[in-house]
């Protein structure tokens, strides 16, 4: 009798695991995890460019203009879903858009960009995911809004939707450009 209960026991463990999965998903609103980075300077990074692997781009070089850092990968299906939104809705906002190709083979990334189009002003590569760890990236796509002083102002985990571009991203960008205007005026 006991050994006939083994399958049931294993199954109950499995149900426990799946139940945990549901609980985890409902209690971790994946797209709304407050990032400890918000309001703090973006982690320093110096990463090679995807299309000119011998050149690098560092966070310091980006000071002066606000930018969006979009973490993506050719292996990431949601990035594919997000892609038309980047092209169609975020690019027209006029803010500098930097792609961070995360944990990816450069050849795959190039192929991906060729296939779907390039919404980025510049693409940098983080092959081993070190910079991703510094930024606290835990899934792709993930997007950081960094202001002209290099401070992270907003973070989005998961893909953008038209709603949260309108309600969250756009006000934040306006705030930044507004601040810049005030600073620029005196």
């Amino acid at each position: 009798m006991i050994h006939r209960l083994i399958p049931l026991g294993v199954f109950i463990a499995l149900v426990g695991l799946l139940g945990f999965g549901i609980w985890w998903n409902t209690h971790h609103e994946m797209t709304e995890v407050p990032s400890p980075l918000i309001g703090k300077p973006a982690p320093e990074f110096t990463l090679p460019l995807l299309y000119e692997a011998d050149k690098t781009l560092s966070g310091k070089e980006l000071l002066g203009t606000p930018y969006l850092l979009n973490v993506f990968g050719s292996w990431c299906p949601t990035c594919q879903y997000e892609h038309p939104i980047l092209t169609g809705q975020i690019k027209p906002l006029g803010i500098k858009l930097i792609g961070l190709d995360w944990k990816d083979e450069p050849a795959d990334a190039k192929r991906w960009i060729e296939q779907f189009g390039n919404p980025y002003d510049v693409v940098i590569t983080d092959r081993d995911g070190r910079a991703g760890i510094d930024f606290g990236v835990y899934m792709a796509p993930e997007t950081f809004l960094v202001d002209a002083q290099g401070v992270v102002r907003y973070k989005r985990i998961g893909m953008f939707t038209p709603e949260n571009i309108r309600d969250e991203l756009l006000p934040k960008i306006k705030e930044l450009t507004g601040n810049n205007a005030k600073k620029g005026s005196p």
Partner: protein
Amino acid sequence: MIPELGQFALILALLLAAAQCVLPILGASRGNAALIAVARPAVAGQAVFVVLAFGALTYAFLQQDFSVAYVAQNSNLALPWYYRFSAVWGAHEGSLLLWILILNLWSVAVAACSRHLPDAVIARVLGVLGFIAFGFLLFTILTSNPFARHLPGLADGADLNPILQDPGLIMHPPMLYTGYVGFSVAFAFAIAALLGGELDVAWVRWARPWTNVAWAFLTFGIALGSWWAYYVLGWGGWWFWDPVENASFMPWLVGTALIHSQAVTEKRGSFRAWTLLLSIFAFSLSLLGTFLVRSGVLTSVHAFASDPKRGLFILAFLGAVVGGSLLIYAIRAPKVAGGKPFKFLSRDTLLLVNNLMFACAAAMVLLGTLYPLIGDAIGAGRISVGPPYFGFMFALLMLPVACLVPFGPFFRWASADWRAAWRALRPALILAVVAAAAAKWMVPSLPLRGLVGVATALWVGAGIILYALMRWRSAPRGRRFTPEMFGMILAHFGFAIFVAGVMITEASSVESDLRFARDETKTIGGLDFRFRGVEHAQGPNYQADQGTIEVSRDGRPIATLSPQKRQYVGGGMAQTKSDIDPGLFRDVYVALGEPLQDGAWSVRVYVKPFVRWIWLGGLFMMFGGFTAAADRRFRAVAERAGIGADASTPEQHHPHPTLPLKGRA
């Protein structure tokens, strides 16, 4: 009005499912013929209302009724009519309705083709199927109503996801669902046997054709899905080990183990408890797949909108169905191992190894699929495992299967003469080694796994042909091949073709991304590709850039390919449409990349030898499954079972004789 009627029909179907579940099972346990007689009419009634509901949703799509939220989300005015049909099952709610429709078709088929079975058995079988239908209907009505209105109605809908706008999608989900929903029949027979306490081998014989047919459909569905992914996703890959694919592959692996263990149980009486367990597992994994795909637990990483209520409901239902079955199993499963004894060298042992390997493979896929979740649970973070893990482990587990499979038919039950089998199979081994050497000599660049592939495929393929020849020579005319045996030969031959396809494609595909100027010619894999530039093309609901590429060899034209990059009107989504020149021995696959300067484009070119063999092997396996299911023995037995024990089965060894209408033991 029509959508409301559809919803009303669903509710009526739910009530009939409840009746179909409760009354016949109650009747069977009490020996009440009136209650037992409810089973068939309840099945028919439920099916009528489910067909009506499905028809109502299809009608809403054909009429473009954008006041129905589901239609508005998955169709628009520009969508061609044939994709409006497939849009019915293009998203969660409708595909659930398809699931239910197919379950009903299976139930009707069981009800219609079971006149020869004891009434109590069929009452329990249909009752179990009714319980499953009840759960899914309740799920649809409570959490995923496809008929929910969006008022006021919209002028136009969004769009069907462009990657789903393909002829492949019209066929793929129905075939796949027919496969894994079909395992519900083997499951229902197993539960009926446990409930009735009639744990002899008769139920296995009745369940075998249904299992084979379900397995054949599942094989076809998976092969179609793989083929569809190959030409639609634009990557040239044919299998991705993605959670959704794994969800359909796990039931297939367990189903493969099940059709083999059923053969042992039916013919030898052994593996009885194991066959029960596999019947439960095969369907449980189908349910688990449904859970994984729809709860958002795993796909949430891919950020599809998901509703925790749905996940909880399926989990509760899964718990009830599988937990309940395993509990009944623990209480009722045969306490003593039955069956005839067998020696180490015997067909029985080989089938045991087969079962072990396929069950391990299914467990391996399950572990890999759930790994991100396990990572969360133990606090190690959400880590997912990818194709390297699956590919390596799967090859490791299938290698012994491939090495042993030719011996299977040559080994006798109980005790085999391995020398005779070895003598018979020696030509196959020699052929395999010689062919691998010849392949190395002809294509020196072929890597090791290509050689292993050639050798393995020939070993398996030639092995099964040698067996077919031996039967042809030694058995008297008319008794050479029973359908069951012929099905086995076809399926094993399909396995050989599949192995050849996978290994050779993986080892020798040429993939390159090239910059093509207008009218430039480049040579890849011995073929010349001439790029004729890109023009604008207009589809029914999209605009496209269409490239023209002429393929030739030594000046002889082979094909003109027209890959596209499409921009769909509805959602503004882009989609790459590759173009393929298919061939039995190689595919030429071309996809358009990005425009570069001066009318030049980047173009992806693949030359994939033997890639078709992957799906061709699948087709052989499918035909094998159907052929085996057609064996008259499975249908004739029921009459015989009433008369007495069949010579090939050991009923006499078992305390329960095969008698109809025994009620609870």
